[in-house]
């Protein structure tokens, strides 16, 4: 009888032990659901499975739903192995709650810090510990233009915003929309960043976004930026309010609009429309942005987990995401450049090469986007202001700058 019991309990024990013995499951939450994005994330999955684990793909509907689901899973005691997050203050807020695993060991072994842009290092550490893994750097301040439109008009894509304002009436007169634009928070931020850099200068940009200098945010230079934005407003089409960026870009793809200011993710949309870089469409930095790269970074964080197999899984996953080789392969599909500056970029397209060249210009060229610069709360306030300014031509640039200064003054430092 006792023997039987002992055998039974040993059996049960063995059964219970099995999960630890088999390959570590990595339950990874992210919001990369569209074609190109999922092909890119498959690189991580394939590599993880190759290294002896099992990748469980947990894709959500955009960042909002993913954040809600992830936070609630953590609250419910069932955290994912890894989750995509918005870099910057959003990551820091997680770290403040002691939710994130420290990756110091993996970072040291992989020599991460020396090979990443300083701004990223600053944003992936908290209290001296590495707590996030940046897998790529998108550039948000490109201009993509229709080769046909500029050839037909015998013009060059604008190098400065003044040039744009000088050319736009001629483009418009030819029956073409000078700038494809959809007035939503996302595209307003891209445009504002590009105008702030191009017309206000990198110094002003840094003062407002990095140093949170309220005086700079209310300065005359900033008023000039807003007034320029107001001038650009007259060159968008009537269908612009709340149009998605994909639909705005479709205007460039179908040669109805001359150019659009947006990030390198545009390439995915162009290739889905069977358009070829260099032949159908061109890629340059936005007007006046030739030596600036507005970084848009995707990061993964690893919530604290007590299960030993999950700890192993997290370590494995973090290491492979920061492997330069894996990053090269991943970013070729994602359309961005590797976060690791020592990764091989020879095989990336001309647009990514251009971006990498600007990035290589040093820290002065490496600028944060809203997500890197502000908390989600502050970012939202700035976006509300931009939306309000754009949709109300009666709002003066001076008023807008004053409101911006108010927001920046209350932003976290």
């Amino acid at each position: 009888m006792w023997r039987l019991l002992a055998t039974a309990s040993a059996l049960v024990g063995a059964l219970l032990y099995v999960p630890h013995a088999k390959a570590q499951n990595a339950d990874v939450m992210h919001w990369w659901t569209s074609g190109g994005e999922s092909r890119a994330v498959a690189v991580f999955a394939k590599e993880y499975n190759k290294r002896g684990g099992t990748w469980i793909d947990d894709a959500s509907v955009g960042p909002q739903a993913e954040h809600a689901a992830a936070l609630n899973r953590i609250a419910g005691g069932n955290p994912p192995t890894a989750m995509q997050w918005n870099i910057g203050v959003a990551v820091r807020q997680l770290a403040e709650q002691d939710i994130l695993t420290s990756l110091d060991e993996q970072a040291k072994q992989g020599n991460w810090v020396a090979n990443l842009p300083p701004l990223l290092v600053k944003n992936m550490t908290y209290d001296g510990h590495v707590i996030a893994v940046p897998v790529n750097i998108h550039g948000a301040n490109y201009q993509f233009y229709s080769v046909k439109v500029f050839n037909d008009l015998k013009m060059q894509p604008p190098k400065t915003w003044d040039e744009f304002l000088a050319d736009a009436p001629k483009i418009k007169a030819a029956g073409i929309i000078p700038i494809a634009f959809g007035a939503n928070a996302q595209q307003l931020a891209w445009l504002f960043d590009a105008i702030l850099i191009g017309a206000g200068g990198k110094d002003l940009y840094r003062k407002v976004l990095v140093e949170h200098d309220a005086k700079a945010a209310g300065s005359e230079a900033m008023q000039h930026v807003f007034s320029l934005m107001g001038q650009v407003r007259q060159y968008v089409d009537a269908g612009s309010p709340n149009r998605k960026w994909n639909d705005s870009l479709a205007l460039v793809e179908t040669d109805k609009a001359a150019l659009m200011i947006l990030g390198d993710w545009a390439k995915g949309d162009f290739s889905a429309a069977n358009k070829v870089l260099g032949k159908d469409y061109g890629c340059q930095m936005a007007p006046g942005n030739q030596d600036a790269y507005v970084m848009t970074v995707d990061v993964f964080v690893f919530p604290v987990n007590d299960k030993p197999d999950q700890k192993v899984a997290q370590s494995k996953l973090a290491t492979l995401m920061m492997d330069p080789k894996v990053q090269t392969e991943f970013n070729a599909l994602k359309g961005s450049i590797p976060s690791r500056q020592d990764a091989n970029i020879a095989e990336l397209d001309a647009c990514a090469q251009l971006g990498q060249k600007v990035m290589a210009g040093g820290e002065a060229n490496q600028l944060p986007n809203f997500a890197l610069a502000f908390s989600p709360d502050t970012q939202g306030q700035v976006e509300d202001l931009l939306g309000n300014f754009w949709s109300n031509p009666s709002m003066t640039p001076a008023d807008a700058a004053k409101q911006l200064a108010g927001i920046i003054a209350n932003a976290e430092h």
Partner: protein
Amino acid sequence: MSARLPVAVGTASPPSQSAESVAVAPMVGRAYRTRSRAAKIALVPTIAIMLGFYYASISWTVYISMTRSFLLPIYKFAGAAQYERLFATPRWHVAYSNMFLFGVLDIIGTLGLGVLLAVLLDRAVRFEGLFRTIMLYPLSISFIVTGLTWQWVLSPTIGVQHFVRDLGWDGFVFDWITQPDRAIYTLAFAGVWHQSGLIMAIMLAGLRGVDREIWRAARIEGIPTWRTYISIVLPMLRPLIVTCLVLIAIAVVRSYDLVVAMTNGGPGFSSDLPGKFVVDFEFERANIGQASAAATVMLGSMLAVISPYLYFELARKNR
């Protein structure tokens, strides 16, 4: 005589009827009183859910609105700071006053169209199933997609305006969705389109329940059909109309998908509604303190506006 004869049973009865039944009660005697322990026990789960989930959660929300919680709850008391900020936010004021404008338009439009449709279908039409399903289908399809379609239809560059101009009427303008002071009306329009089918179904269920005798009596007395509806049948369905009203009001207060799919609150934040304001702050902006404060104000306003009326409505039948 006519309204009271074979007592309106289907769904509703004239208000006077309950008073009459109360008078009957003593005759029935003590043992048959409609008092039962089983009835009370049956309500226990409901009350437990109400208190344990809803009111606990509401109290939690109210408390969180008095803290400086951002991404996750922080339980350190911080007074009225969230409310001060909320009331200093221009976007909140736009969203809040939009709620009343949108609410009134949406309630009148949805209820009016829904009742009209129910009456039309009640006139024994052929292909009723087809008509009914067409009116209900807006509910079934994800608003993410149909809202986008409305956005296209209303867009001046690809929608109706473009279409009519292509037909040759060059001066035609239909661009409300792009006008900050008009966009909210397009939301109300889509709201009516989305929900009136449901109201139709509820009212149709009620109309079908109305006793045939009432119709016969009305016909004998020579009352025209439309008057029978307006002065006899619809007043009998008062409780159902109240139900519809509450359903629409809930949709107004909580509307989120509708705004996101149609205008995303824009242009600027001109067509924002509190429901979207709350969710934006809750998730996208990781500021649950501010979201909770907004939700609390919303709930408080609803209490002030709708609960006295509802209490009156609920009480008028049972007492």
